[in-house]
């Protein structure tokens, strides 16, 4: 059996009175790609934001690489170096060049050698086809280019785990493919463990080992990808798939 890298047990999350995540239980194996699917507002983003401490949760435990996470801000700062995250709205730092965006984490948080980090940053930029943009500012880039830099920025910390939160949702359709190829490449070549929240069903089907289907803050099913897309276990998942045009 594969080694588990992340376990989530009995996670409960409230916004004031509103119960947004109900008794969430799942695990992720090392090297596994999990896609998180569900209608909008089902709690997908909230759930993955809990996994790196951007959202607080009220009950339950998260265990990462065999250690139970004490949810203090200090601990999260450590964990976040291991769990990279890319957001829908890219959110590069507009005051820094592309290279400085990438170097901020490695040099300031991890105190890596600047020279080596820069070399690695350039390699990563080359990998996403942006080696000529190291000194550009974010405002000079297109949405797709920004998102590629955001992925590089996360990878530069050498994470063991990546979270992708609707990373193609604000992009023009012609930019989407490029981003998805990069994520696919991370899975195929680097065997990166990842959780992907997406509305791109074709992509989900193609990349996922396993699908977690979420509705109204409940996990309704966790099914190997092939089976989920051909014959999901629940009626709600079937309806969801029918409603998605792909």
């Amino acid at each position, binding site marked *: 059996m594969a080694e588990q890298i992340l376990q989530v047990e009995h996670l409960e999350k409230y916004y004031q009175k509103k119960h947004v995540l109900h008794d969430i239980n799942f695990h992720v194996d090392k090297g596994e790609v999990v896609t998180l699917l569900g209608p909008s507002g089902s709690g997908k983003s909230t759930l993955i934001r809990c996994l790196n401490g951007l959202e607080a949760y009220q009950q339950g435990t998260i265990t990462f690489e065999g250690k139970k996470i004490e949810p203090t801000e200090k601990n999260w700062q450590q964990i976040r170096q291991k769990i990279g995250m890319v957001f829908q*709205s890219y959110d590069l730092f507009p005051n820094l060049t592309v290279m400085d965006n990438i170097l901020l984490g490695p040099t300031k948080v991890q105190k890596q050698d600047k020279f080596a980090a820069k070399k690695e940053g350039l390699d990563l930029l080359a990998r996403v086809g942006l080696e000529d943009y190291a000194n550009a500012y974010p405002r000079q880039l297109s949405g797709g280019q920004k998102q590629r830099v955001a992925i590089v920025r*996360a990878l530069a910390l050498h994470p063991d785990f990546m979270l992708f939160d609707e990373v193609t949702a604000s992009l023009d359709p012609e930019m989407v493919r490029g981003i998805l190829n990069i994520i696919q490449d991370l899975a195929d070549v680097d065997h990166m463990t990842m959780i992907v929240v997406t509305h791109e069903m074709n992509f989900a089907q193609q990349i996922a080992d396993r699908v977690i289907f979420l509705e109204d803050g409940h996990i309704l099913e966790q099914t190997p990808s092939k089976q989920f897309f051909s014959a999901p276990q629940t009626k709600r998942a079937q309806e969801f798939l029918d409603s998605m045009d792909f």
Partner: protein
Amino acid sequence: MDHSGISVLFEGTNFQRLLGGLWVTVRIAAVALIIGLILGVILGVLRTFKNRPLRIILRLYLEFFRVVPTVVLLFLFYYILPREMNFNLPGDQLATLVFALWVAAEMSDIVRGALISVPQHQKESGKAIGLNRYQLYRYVLIPQAISLEIPATINLATRVIKTTSLLLLISVMDVINIGQQIIEANNHTHPTGVFWVYGLIFLFYFLIDYPLSWWAKRLEKKRLERANG
């Protein structure tokens, strides 16, 4: 006697004396601004923290300096520091202190406003790469806030420069005070001198403040264009 009033400006060392007074004015404004801006940034950052008592105290500090007119602030320090605290400062240093504390109060509000208008996502992206609070402010929030706050800061500087006109009230030898001395000394020979001396001082203030306001306006316009484009 029939002297043209304007000649009073150039008689003897009058013009140099006025420039000397202007230098006192500018120096007080500049030192107060530098101290006030630094202190104001610190207070502004503290005002974005969650600590409630700290926020209330700093808010009260701001409101005090907002509500009390600057003339009154000057006199408060002028009378109360030496008498109650046995703390004697020459007029120019006292004025520098008062202006610096006032600038710090106004600046803390500008900085806080700019910091809270940096989008929440920027904060999250910073956290997501493991930045701690200090690093988040140092590399992400403050640099972005600064570009938002520069026009307001320049406008604050023009206000401080205008407010230095009050130095006269606590007997600092600023440009207006020297102007008054020149007017009084030449009142008999140059009865219209008052027009030219105050006219020149008026012009001095305008020549310092106008370029600053123009610059602030231009930066603000550029920023808005960038935000909309």
